[in-house]
């Protein structure tokens, strides 16, 4: 087209006031207009307009009342009389949007079924999609035949519509959809790209619980009959799933299907290349030889002109850099040019990747580049950068000076709470881990609280300052900053500052008189809490109060950690009835109640800062179990429930009866709670009981059984078996289980059961009670403090050779598994390629004995792992016992 294009533009039109076809639209009026749907002579065009208006209202967030929706729905059904194709499309859309109730659906079923068998492909495809969205399972069986036909329909649009509807229906009526396997399998071979994609997705979901079938599917398809890029992506996902599951059992040798993944790196479609590259980088224990081809294609993407491609590549490489930094260093030059990328997400990912792969000599140069960069990115990116800097600093402690400076500089700049908190948390962690960084770090924090608008952060820093400040070379220089808080801040911060002052007074004798002067001034504070604290500390430090008779008690009171969960303390205090007996704080339970599952959203974010040390799965005594068990008279005399395990599955998924067991541990008893579900609608089970053979667990003797009277379809019930064991003995053993019951036939149409039943039994999997069952996972907030506060006399240290292990990480998780304790401060994660690792564990052993464990692992030979185990606990005997557990484990 050499000829210049003259584009006519109506300038007047642009300046005209904007006109929308929906200007001033109003729900009531549109609903009135919808009356045209009832006209005997339908005006298709007019009806289309009205539907568009209705859809516009819904799209803008307007809602119809139940009555209005029903009215619109009925009116819309009239439009099936019109033969106008365009109108019919809008009718389909409208019905889906209205999501009619079951009794309304019946009205359109016949019209839609007619369309499903129409000669027009467009009608068939759309009628299927609409109908499958709105029907229930009883109606579904009526149209099942047509859907099966549609799956293998010549027209790809019709086939896809049926397949996608199948994926949707699988969630509500799996038993029906599973019957379509043959047709779906045929569709996988379709020539049409999207039919293949939809068929593969459905086939996999039908078989997803059958590992063998999925593996077969992958084996046959990786030989090359899949052409569509989307279907290829699916196949890659399923393949890596199979690899993941197979590598759990077999070790050594070539990884199955790796050739297939590698061949996908040479695919024409970029999405397939990316999917394959990502799958390779995420393989368990991926080797650098396996990584290389994937890194190479990702590196090419880094210089693409498409932002999405650059983003995808840099994001993947960033993840790889956390585990295999050396593999990514080749891309460093490309990464550096991405720091100035227009897209800030890409730039941030590039920076953090560089921070992960950088070596000691490049730190200073990177810091320089970062300073300019930080000012023009959003807070959430800054947090990512701060976290990356923190880990870099821990990696290269010698570089703490420039990194600490960087952190303090950005701490002074503008920013929101989360961002500032990330910086403060980082500085605190650096102070803890790098002794040389302590003085400068504390000084930066002091400067920060001089001008900090966040109460939470001020108190956090003051608390930290109180613990660390007195141990520095010149504690007196911090006093000014702390006392300034007493003068300038709100009551919460003032109270916190008073506590900090007291800590300095307690530890630094030379400062004591001056601290006394300052604390006395606080006695005139306007706030009760501040005055109370000042009074208490003055008495405590002056040695007058009864609580503080010895210096040790004072320090314990000031610095001791408060282990009792506040929720438990609150309940105990509420239950305390005023009487002669004083409230005894040691009676408060130390067990943390399991937290309600945090909202789904948080899963995407990683916990940051020291707070993460507290998090982690905490399976403990569930109040509902306690209540259930104490209501059963047979078990009432067993005393206090120590621990309930997570449910252990005793049956495979999707079997006739599904049974799992919860182990309840008491001091002298163990109760096994079997949760049973009957998944056969045609059966009623009665007198359900689990017969337990404890011949391989001779330290246990069965004392009681509680059977389940009846177990109807799909309503779970429990049966219990109780065992006695010696108190204080760490009894372990294996139990084999058989489910025994009387089965009665049920007529599904009436729901009535036959009078006559047949005795039957069902073999369940074995169950083990291990020493880990006697240990509660209870975390501590500051391991070092907790360790130091325990009696060194109780410490038992010994060394163990663990023999040849697959990796250090595997050895660490095996020992954690044997002990059943809570890993602290994220030490359960072993950085790859490291030759040694220290892991900190905490827990409460049966008998409420607090136990702390310090594990040091090291690689001696190529794969030989050696371990040093140090235990401290409230009871030296328990320390010995922990060693016994490890020695036997």
């Amino acid at each position, binding site marked *: 087209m050499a000829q210049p294009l003259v584009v006519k533009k109506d300038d007047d039109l642009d300046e005209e006031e*904007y006109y929308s076809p929906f200007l001033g639209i109003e729900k009531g009026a549109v609903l009135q207009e919808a009356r045209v749907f009832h006209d005997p002579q339908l005006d298709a065009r007019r009806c289309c307009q009205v539907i568009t208006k209705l859809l516009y209202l819904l799209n803008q967030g307007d809602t119809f009342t139940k009555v209005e929706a029903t009215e619109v729905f009925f009116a819309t059904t009239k439009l099936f009389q019109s033969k106008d194709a365009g109108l019919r499309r809008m009718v389909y859309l409208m019905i889906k949007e209205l999501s009619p109730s079951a009794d309304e659906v019946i009205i359109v079923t016949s019209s839609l079924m007619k369309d499903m068998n129409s000669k027009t492909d467009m009608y068939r495809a759309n009628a299927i999609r609409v109908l499958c969205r709105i029907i229930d399972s009883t109606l579904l069986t009526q149209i099942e035949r047509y859907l099966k036909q549609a799956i293998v329909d010549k027209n790809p649009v019709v086939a896809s519509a049926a397949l996608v509807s199948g994926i949707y229906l699988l969630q509500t009526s799996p038993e029906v959809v599973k019957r379509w396997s043959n047709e779906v399998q045929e569709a996988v071979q379709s020539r049409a790209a999207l039919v293949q994609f939809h068929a593969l997705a459905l086939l996999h979901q039908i078989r997803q619980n059958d590992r063998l079938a999925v593996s077969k599917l992958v084996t046959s398809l990786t030989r090359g009959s899949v052409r569509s890029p989307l279907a290829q992506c699916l196949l890659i996902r399923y393949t890596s799933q199979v690899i993941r599951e197979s590598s759990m059992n077999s070790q050594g040798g070539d990884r199955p299907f790796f050739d297939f993944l590698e061949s996908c790196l040479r695919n024409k479609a970029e999405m397939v290349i990316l999917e394959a590259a990502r799958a390779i980088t995420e393989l368990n224990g991926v080797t650098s030889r396996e990584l290389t081809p994937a890194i190479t294609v990702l590196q090419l993407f880094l210089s693409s002109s498409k932002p999405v491609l650059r983003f995808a590549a840099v994001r993947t490489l960033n993840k790889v850099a956390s585990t295999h930094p050396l593999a990514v260093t080749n891309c460093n030059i490309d990464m550096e040019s991405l720091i100035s990328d227009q897209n800030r997400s890409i730039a941030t990912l590039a920076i953090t990747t560089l921070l992960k792969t950088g070596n000691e000599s490049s730190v200073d140069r990177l810091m320089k580049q970062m300073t300019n960069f930080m000012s023009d990115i959003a807070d959430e990116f800054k947090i990512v950068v701060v976290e990356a800097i923190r880990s870099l600093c821990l990696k290269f402690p010698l570089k703490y000076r420039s990194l600490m400076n960087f952190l303090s500089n950005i701490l002074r700049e503008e920013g929101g709470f989360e961002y500032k908190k990330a910086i403060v948390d980082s500085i605190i962690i650096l102070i803890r881990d790098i002794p040389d960084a302590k003085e400068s770090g504390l000084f930066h924090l002091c400067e920060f609280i001089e001008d900090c608008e966040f109460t939470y952060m001020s108190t956090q820093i003051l608390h930290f300052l109180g613990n660390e400040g007195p141990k520095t070379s010149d504690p007196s220089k911090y006093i000014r900053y702390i006392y300034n808080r007493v003068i300038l801040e709100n009551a919460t911060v003032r109270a916190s500052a008073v506590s900090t002052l007291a800590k300095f007074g307690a530890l630094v004798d030379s400062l004591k008189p001056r601290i006394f002067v300052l604390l006395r001034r606080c006695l005139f504070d306007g706030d009760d809490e501040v005055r109370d604290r000042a009074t208490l500390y003055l008495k405590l430090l002056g040695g007058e109060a009864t609580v503080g008779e010895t210096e040790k008690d004072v320090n314990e009171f000031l610095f001791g950690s408060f282990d009792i969960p506040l929720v438990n303390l609150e309940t105990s205090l509420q239950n305390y009835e005023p009487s002669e007996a004083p409230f005894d704080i040691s009676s408060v339970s130390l067990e943390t109640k399991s937290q309600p599952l945090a909202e789904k959203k948080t899963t995407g974010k990683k916990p940051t800062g020291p707070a993460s040390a507290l998090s982690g799965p905490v399976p403990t005594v569930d109040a509902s179990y306690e209540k259930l068990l104490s209501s059963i008279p047979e078990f009432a005399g067993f005393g206090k429930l120590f621990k309930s395990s997570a449910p252990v599955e005793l049956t495979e998924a999707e079997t006739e009866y599904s049974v799992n067991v919860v182990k309840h541990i008491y001091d002298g008893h163990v109760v096994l709670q079997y949760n049973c579900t009957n998944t056969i609608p045609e059966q009623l089970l009665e007198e359900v009981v689990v017969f337990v053979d404890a011949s391989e667990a001779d330290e246990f003797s069965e004392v009681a059984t509680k059977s389940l009277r009846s177990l109807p379809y799909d309503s779970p019930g429990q049966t219990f078996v109780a065992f006695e064991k010696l108190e204080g003995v760490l009894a372990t053993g294996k139990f084999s289980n058989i489910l025994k019951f009387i089965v009665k036939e049920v007529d599904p149409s009436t729901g009535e059961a036959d009078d006559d039943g047949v005795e039957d039994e069902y073999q369940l999997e074995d169950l083990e009670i291990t020493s880990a069952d006697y240990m509660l996972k209870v975390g501590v907030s500051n391991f070092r403090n907790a360790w130091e506060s325990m009696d060194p006399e109780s410490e038992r240290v010994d060394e163990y050779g663990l023999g040849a292990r697959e990796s250090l990480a595997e050895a660490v998780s095996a020992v954690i598994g044997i002990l059943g304790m809570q890993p602290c401060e994220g030490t359960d994660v072993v950085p790859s390629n490291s030759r040694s690792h220290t892991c900190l564990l905490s827990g409460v052993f049966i008998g409420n004995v607090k136990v702390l464990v310090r594990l040091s692992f090291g690689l001696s030979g190529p794969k030989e792992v050696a371990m040093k185990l140090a235990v401290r606990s409230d009871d030296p005997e328990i320390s010995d016992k922990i060693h016994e557990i490890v020695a036997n484990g």
Partner: protein
Amino acid sequence: MGEFSKESCPSVKNILLLDSEGKRVAVKYFSDDWSSNASKLAFEKSVFTKTLKTNARSEAEITLFDGYIVVYKFVQDLHFFVTAGDDENELIIANVLQGFSDSVGLLLRGDVEKRTALENLDLILLCIDEIVDGGIILETDANTIAGKVATNAVDGSAPFSEQTISQALATAREHLARSLLK
């Protein structure tokens, strides 16, 4: 079903078409992550403000926030967005976005702006309906999508009336080419 999303089909969380002030032209959500209209509006607002200053005109852009990836493109005064979970393959989602913006371009015959989009809202809604069903990608090829939507217009009432489909698509492509050359 935590594992479900990643192990199974690529899935789309929502498709948004907003105007240059961040107001809705047409939106469709396929996920329960946003349960109320208020939470949807809040999401749209934050997506809009976070992407406003970027230049997503010649190439589709991408951002990551709140645990979602959002791929987006601006044409005249219209902002196209497609959202997915953060572990999704970005290029698949970018493909959906391209199918969406290009097919709208074809259906509006190159005249991609808010005013025309609202005047042909029925086509836009049908177009979204043909691209994704319940989160599962139905079709990403712009010509096929536009073809499927345009088959409606056979009765003489809709804009494609006087032309056959192939003619309509040819004009549309020409318009598109012209708008790119501008």
